[in-house]
């Protein structure tokens, strides 16, 4: 029973990790909390729903949904954030409010286009379940864990192994110097928004197919907890976000084991506040003064 909760915690924690990484990616390059991320995730999941229903093949539908969500994320940056960056008077609060605004615009669009009710979403991963001792692995749980791990590995490769990833890390460390070295910061930022959009869509798709449900507010609780996980791990730090996500997921399930279901949603924030009181920059966060 306890072990079962840990397994449940890991699978939900990996989804938090994916979303959390999305926050960190954008924070890394722009020092900005992408508060529109939860809605981008929701829009991504709804794209999956509509495109799968269009019946031109399951995987092609998902791929189109991924690209579209990436473009929505890029659109957000190009149409709203980029003009703000050019203006001298705009500070981090302006950007933050813009993001929160865009979050609500997307959420409302979702409501208008797809309606507010919960809609069924097919579970393509249902191959029954597997019992190991007293612990039951449900097949969609296994697929979620595997997919999340593959995506996290791919993101790690992009960031630590590819040239554009090097550019992203350079922009994160020192935007001015990256610019001077010939890194096209616009391209790097656009790319970051694109892959964070794709990550959001994958997370939205996994969540929707795991719970077989899709609805416009699906991103709200998830986004909040994943954001907490990102800050917990030290926002901007990739592995910090992954570990933050796992901690939130596991502790949440363990807390339910000890205190019942009512405490569940508060857990992420309680851990977050405790950690921030002890380590203000998060578990793996570097304190700001390392930035030149």
């Amino acid at each position, binding site marked *: 029973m306890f072990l079962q909760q840990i397994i449940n915690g890991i699978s939900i924690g990996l989804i938090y990790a994916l979303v959390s990484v999305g926050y960190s990616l954008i924070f890394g390059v722009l020092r900005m909390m992408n508060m529109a991320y939860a809605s981008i995730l929701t829009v991504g999941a709804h794209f999956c729903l509509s495109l799968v229903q269009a019946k031109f093949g399951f995987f092609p539908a998902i791929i189109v949904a991924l690209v579209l969500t990436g473009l929505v994320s890029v659109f957000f940056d190009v149409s709203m954030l980029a003009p703000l960056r050019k203006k*001298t008077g705009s500070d981090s609060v302006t950007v933050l409010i813009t993001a929160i605004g865009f979050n609500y615009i997307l959420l409302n669009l979702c409501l208008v286009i797809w309606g507010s009710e919960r809609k069924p979403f097919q579970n393509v991963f249902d191959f029954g379940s597997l019992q190991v001792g007293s612990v039951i692995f449900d097949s969609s749980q296994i697929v979620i864990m595997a997919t999340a791990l593959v995506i996290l590995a791919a993101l790690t490769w992009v960031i630590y192994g590819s040239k554009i990833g*090097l550019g992203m890390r*350079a922009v994160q460390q*020192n935007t001015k110097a990256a*610019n*001077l070295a*010939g890194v096209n910061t616009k391209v790097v930022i656009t790319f970051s928004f694109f892959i964070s959009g794709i990550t959001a869509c994958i997370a939205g798709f996994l969540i929707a197919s795991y719970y077989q449900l899709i609805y416009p507010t699906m991103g709200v609780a998830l986004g909040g907890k994943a954001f907490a996980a990102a800050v917990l791990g030290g926002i901007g730090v990739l592995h910090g976000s992954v570990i933050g996500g796992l901690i939130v997921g596991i502790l949440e399930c363990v807390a339910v084991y000890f205190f019942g279901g009512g405490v569940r949603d508060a857990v992420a924030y309680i851990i977050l506040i405790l950690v921030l009181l002890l380590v203000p920059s998060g578990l793996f966060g570097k304190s700001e003064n*390392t930035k*030149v």
Partner: protein
Amino acid sequence: MLNVTNLNTFYGNIHAIKDINLEVKQGEIVTIVGSNGAGKTTTLMSICGVLRKARGSKIEFLGEDITDLSPCEIVKRGISVSPEGREIFPGLSVSDNLKLGAFTRTNAAEISDSYERVYALFPRLKEREKQNAGTLSGGEQQMLAIGRAIMSKPKLLLLDEPSMGLAPNLVKMIFKLIKEINGQGVTIMLVEQNASMALKIANRGYILETGRVKFCDSAEVLRTNNEVKKAYLGGK
């Protein structure tokens, strides 16, 4: 090679650069000296595309108008900069810092030649290849900043106060290396507060005062100019 005409640059309302004209010829070392706040860094940043220039300003490089190009386009054209305060990437390894210098280049063989060249110039960097740049000493960080600028295989190298905050023996060594890089065919524009050292290795010099060019002549002439001596060379 580089022709700057009527350069005017503003920070908001502050008119930092006023009608500056500059010329750099192939193979030269040109130095820009001036006291703190004279506008040296602003001039460099205007050239390499980070700052926007006022209307009427014109910057030509190898006959091409580069006034409104973005920094990465300008790097591609063959101008690179080792900025004031080094501006290295502290959380990245020394070799990743260098790799970023070659970001606009694609030919892997040529890039690895550039690594060889940088490591030959600065063997210390080779020893610390895997180390995070933030852990390097001040002198080593300066070498890294220059090395990174060289990685783009520039035709014109802009150096902004490479001697700042270094011990005298290190300053000497850096200046020696600058000569050496110039000897390998790289044209150099050297911004310095340490005017005596700069004028020793430069062919020509510009003296900036509150955003304007005060004097412009060959290095020997400037070294012997009384006014320059008094203001910038310790009055000897």
